[in-house]
């Protein structure tokens, strides 16, 4: 899917479908949902009428047919452009939904009845509570919980991630999604969703935009746009008698042109496209947002609650240093740590070998071929090797090793505790290494912060977003990682309730909180948070409580999602500002044009020096129409966003979209005027 992101924002199929949709959407029943464009459509009908009956309102003049016809045509195209913008945004979601739908088709399920017999039924016939068997090569018929078995499942249909994931009964890896494929072994699954309501179905609905509701901010903005539209309607309607009083009769089609130019058609036409595209961008990031409101809320987030393990650090403790104790040397500890780990396949063991090799210590593995490997157990809390010659090498938790050595009659070096305390104090895990009854040193295991996070947390701080790290570690360890990663606060020895407490505390201060989670015990916190991002690998409970699901199960992605939310809001604000700022130039094009026939002196206000009144009005109208498709790419991709302080961000955007919004139409209208004036001359208009 990441390739998708780099592709152009529109494919041939989407283009074709969108053009078709633009006409379908002309249906007034549909148009009324967008009041601004509905007014334009009404204007279109009136000008169409005036094209056929130019004298209906008692207007006279040469070429009224043609002039009204051109106005009609431009208005018609304006409406089409607005519909097209929405259709393109929807189209991209639809294309994605289509590929998802394919995975849903033709699935069979092996239903296990009460007697344990297997019956083949259609996947769509499975009910909640049914138990099905899924074997290697089968598609999982519906969402469910694994109750027996262990298998690797290819979830690429949903996540785009080709590496299969392991699923087993119990724990946090028991939930499976309909439409994914078992690639090895088998699973018995209890179905948890009724057909048509599975995760896949919900996803299809969401990306298709079928269940899209306007967000609160969109509704409020629409209200302002409607209010502005009504103001300009009053302005234009009253202008007719006002002008009549001073002896100027304004043609109705010109009044409609003025109205359409003044009402915020640009943002009116692009508003829903911006919203759909925002959700689409989240989807392209392989995150499914349950509502547009959730994406909007991301922009408003003040506090991020992040799990340490998996989100901030890799979670694996890796060897970082060998520290000798007693009279032993660094060389000795390095060597024995290496030997003890030769057969240790854990990340700790492997990293120990890597570090030792890096420090230039090598041993001949063949020499220890016959050594007996002692595995780590929860009881012994240590592992190691027993060499052929009877030497027992152990590494493990300091107290376990201490006990082991003392039982053998050994002595504990005086500086051992100092070293281990120091390591724990800086957030590391000390592993003591002993050779028979002698403790020779300590391996310093360190949790590693993911690269790039430090800078990102710094950026978040600049944006005014606070980060809180949650970890089960002791406060000392937590403090060290917190400092290293640069988070603002941390909660050590955190229980699930502590997370909810933290969320509530932040919310009480009026802040919006976002968090990620996967386990069942995260579900209440996910529900409490304003933005809850659940991992797809997580439990069903967690996914249901969240308002977003990350299909790649990468908890760090919450940072990107927040940025997408902000980008969505910025795009909406930028295009609103641009649209309204455009009015200044349009006024200066149309007002002098309307009045200068009767009052020639009015031409001093024609600061763009537009050739003729007709050309001025039509140029403004054409500009007004083509600005909509011209801005579609920005609406789809979102305006460029770099995290920075609100003030800097605002200054930048207001200069581009505010000041730019005032200047661009002056240039645009002038250029169009220069282009169309010769044509109008030929047509005998002006």
């Amino acid at each position: 899917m990441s390739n998708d992101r780099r592709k152009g924002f529109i494919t041939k199929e989407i283009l074709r479908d969108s053009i078709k949709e633009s006409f379908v959407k002309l249906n007034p029943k549909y148009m009324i949902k967008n009041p601004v464009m509905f007014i334009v459509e009404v204007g279109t009908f009136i000008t169409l009428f005036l094209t056929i009956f130019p004298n209906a309102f008692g207007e006279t003049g040469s070429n009224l047919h043609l002039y009204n016809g051109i106005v009609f045509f431009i208005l018609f195209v304006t409406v089409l452009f607005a519909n097209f913008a929405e259709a393109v945004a929807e189209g991209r979601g639809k294309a994605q939904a289509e590929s998802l739908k394919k995975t849903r088709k033709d699935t069979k399920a092996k239903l296990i009845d009460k007697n344990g017999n297997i019956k083949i039924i259609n996947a769509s016939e499975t009910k909640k509570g049914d138990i099905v068997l899924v074997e290697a090569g089968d598609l999982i018929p519906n969402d469910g919980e694994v109750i027996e078995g262990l298998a690797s499942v290819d979830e690429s249909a949903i996540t785009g991630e080709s590496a299969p994931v392991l699923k087993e009964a119990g724990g946090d890896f028991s939930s499976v999604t309909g439409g994914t494929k078992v690639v090895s072994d088998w699973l018995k699954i209890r179905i948890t969703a009724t057909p048509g309501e599975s995760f896949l179905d919900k996803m299809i609905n969401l990306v298709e935009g079928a269940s899209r509701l306007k967000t609160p901010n969109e509704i409020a903005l629409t209200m302002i746009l409607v209010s502005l539209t009504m103001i300009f309607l009053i302005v234009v309607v009253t202008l007719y008698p006002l002008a009549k009083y001073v002896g100027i009769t304004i043609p109705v089609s010109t009044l409609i042109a003025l109205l359409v130019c003044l009402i915020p058609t640009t943002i009116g036409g692009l508003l829903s496209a911006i919203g759909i595209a925002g959700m689409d961008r989240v989807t392209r990031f392989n995150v499914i947002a349950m509502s547009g409101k959730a994406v909007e809320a991301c922009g408003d987030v003040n506090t991020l609650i992040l799990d340490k393990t998996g989100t901030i650090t890799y979670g694996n403790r890796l060897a970082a240093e060998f520290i000798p104790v007693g009279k032993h040397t660094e060389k000795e500890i390095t060597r024995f740590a290496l030997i003890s780990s030769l057969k240790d396949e854990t990340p700790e063991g492997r990293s120990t070998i890597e570090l030792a090799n890096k420090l230039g210590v090598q041993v001949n593995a063949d020499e220890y071929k016959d050594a007996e490997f002692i595995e780590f157990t929860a009881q012994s809390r240590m592992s190691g090797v027993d060499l052929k010659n009877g030497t027992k090498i152990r590494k493990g938790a300091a107290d376990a090793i201490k006990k082991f050595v003392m039982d053998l009659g050994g002595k504990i070096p005086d500086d051992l505790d100092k070293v281990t305390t120091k390591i724990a104090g800086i957030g590391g895990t000390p592993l003591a290494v002993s050779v028979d009854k002698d403790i020779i040193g300590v391996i310093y295991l360190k949790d590693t912060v993911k690269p790039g996070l430090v800078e990102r947390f710094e950026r978040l701080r600049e944006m005014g977003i606070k980060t809180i790290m949650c970890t089960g570690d002791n406060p000392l360890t937590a403090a060290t990682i917190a400092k290293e990663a640069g988070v603002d606060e941390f909660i050590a020895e955190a229980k699930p309730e502590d997370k909810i407490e933290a969320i509530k505390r932040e919310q009480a201060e009026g802040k919006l909180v976002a968090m990620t989670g996967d386990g069942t015990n995260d579900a209440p916190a996910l529900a409490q948070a304003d933005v809850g991002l659940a991992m797809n690998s997580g439990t069903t409970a967690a996914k249901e409580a969240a308002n977003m699901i990350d299909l790649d199960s990468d908890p760090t992605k919450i940072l990107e999602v927040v940025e997408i939310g902000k980008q969505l809001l910025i795009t909406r604000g930028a295009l609103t500002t641009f649209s309204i700022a455009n009015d200044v130039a349009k006024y200066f094009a149309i007002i002098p044009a309307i009045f200068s026939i009767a009052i020639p002196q009015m031409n001093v206000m024609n600061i763009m020096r537009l050739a003729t009144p007709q050309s001025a009005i039509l140029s403004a109208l054409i500009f007004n129409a083509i600005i909509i498709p011209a801005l579609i790419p920005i609406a789809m991709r979102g305006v460029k966003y770099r995290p920075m302080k609100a003030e800097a961000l605002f200054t930048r955007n207001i200069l581009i979209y505010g000041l730019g919004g005032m200047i661009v139409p002056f240039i645009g209208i002038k250029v169009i005027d220069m282009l169309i004036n010769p044509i109008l001359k030929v047509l005998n208009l002006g």
Partner: protein
Amino acid sequence: MNWKQYTVALLLTNGVMALLVYIIFRFQSLLGFNPNSNKAMEPSLAFNAAISFITNTNLQHYSGEWGLSYLSQMAAITFLMFTSAATGFAAATAFIRGIAGKKIPGNFFVDLVRTITRILIPFSVVVTLLLVSQGVPQTLTPNQTVTTIQGNLQDIPLGPVASLESIKHLGTNGGGFFGSNSSHPFENPTPLSNLIEMLSMMAIPGALVYAFGLTLKNRKQGWAIFASMAMLFLMSLSLAYYAEKSGNPALTNIGLNQSMGNMEGKEVRFGIANSALFTTITTAFTTGSVNNMHDSLTPLGGLVPLWQMMLNVIFGGEGVGLMNMLMYAILAVFLCGLMVGRTPEFLGKKIEGKEIKLIALVILIHPFIILVPSAISLLTKQGLAGITNPGFHGLSQVLYEFTSSAANNGSGFEGLIDNTLFWNISTGLVMFLGRYISIIALLAVAASLASKKPIPVGPGTFRTDNALFTVILVVVVLIVGALTFFPALALGPIAEHLTLGH
């Protein structure tokens, strides 16, 4: 009091006072203190006058010296000049409390009484005495009839002028004791009295903006709003002064010297500068008193008071101007604030659908009650009958009358024959709607904001207390407020200006 009770108390109190005053106007001939034996007002005029004064508009379709008894001047006019100003003040304080996050608006009666006793009365006493020192009469003696040098008889109107004059300006009321308002030598005899009157108009509305910053405990926010208003004010003043100083090209064309500027309708003791300044102040602060005839201003000079009232945010009358400007601030935040990547917030409160719905109503109502009645006037015989200068100037006269009513300013372009049933009723309704719809809606906005949980302000928040916001606010006011009226202005003063002398 909760928000609803506060609003109801405000409306009921205003209703009772308006009724009382209506009765006084209708029966003034019988109620005494009427040494000049002025007659009772006819119903439509009494309706217009009562609404005019209760709404702090002070549009006068009568001339005080011949239309009002001294009782009416004192018990009706001067009374309402205190209470209507205090009402606007109270509404604004409640509004400020709301957006500052106070859960309850306070008590309307306490606000009303305190405003009168602690601000308006003490200041009025001082200003009255200052005006008396300049020669403004303060007496109950009837009009004097004197024999002029030429041997004609002339009535010299007198009365308790100074006391009315002080509150007229302090309360941004504007209704004159005499028909010719502050250009009358007994209302405004000297350049010093002129200065006192101008400062009186500016004092309270200007101070209120500062008080807003104090209430928020963020003085910079107060200054940011103040600076926006000041920028708009200076734009207007420069244009008015320039236009008047340039004189009338039509008169230049016929060989008259215009080096003094356009002195038609101006008092020689004030000259161009003091007249242009007074005109700009009286329409910015929506007082409505005049020291020169606005009808006689050059077209561009006349455009200034007209467009200031159309905006109705340049300091504005007691409280209302600030409320309107804060409404524009909320609108600016809503339109541009998204560009920081957060849903819009103003002073730590989210701006959502509910507030926006009310604000949408307020920004809609102002052009509605100006443009629609203007259009109706120009379409009806009764409306057209009032116009004395047909053409572009006539259009300006009509626009001015309704704009002045809608903005609760009350200055007249004059020249319009306005004491007719049509004009009394139409402007009466416009004044009423212009005053109360916005007060009710904006108090509801404050109530809604007050009930919201405050959001902490941080580096990610859109700042509204800096120079950038000041500029944005001015631009939003100009685009949303001024462009709305641009076509009408183009047909009125701008067309008149462009064709003058051609």
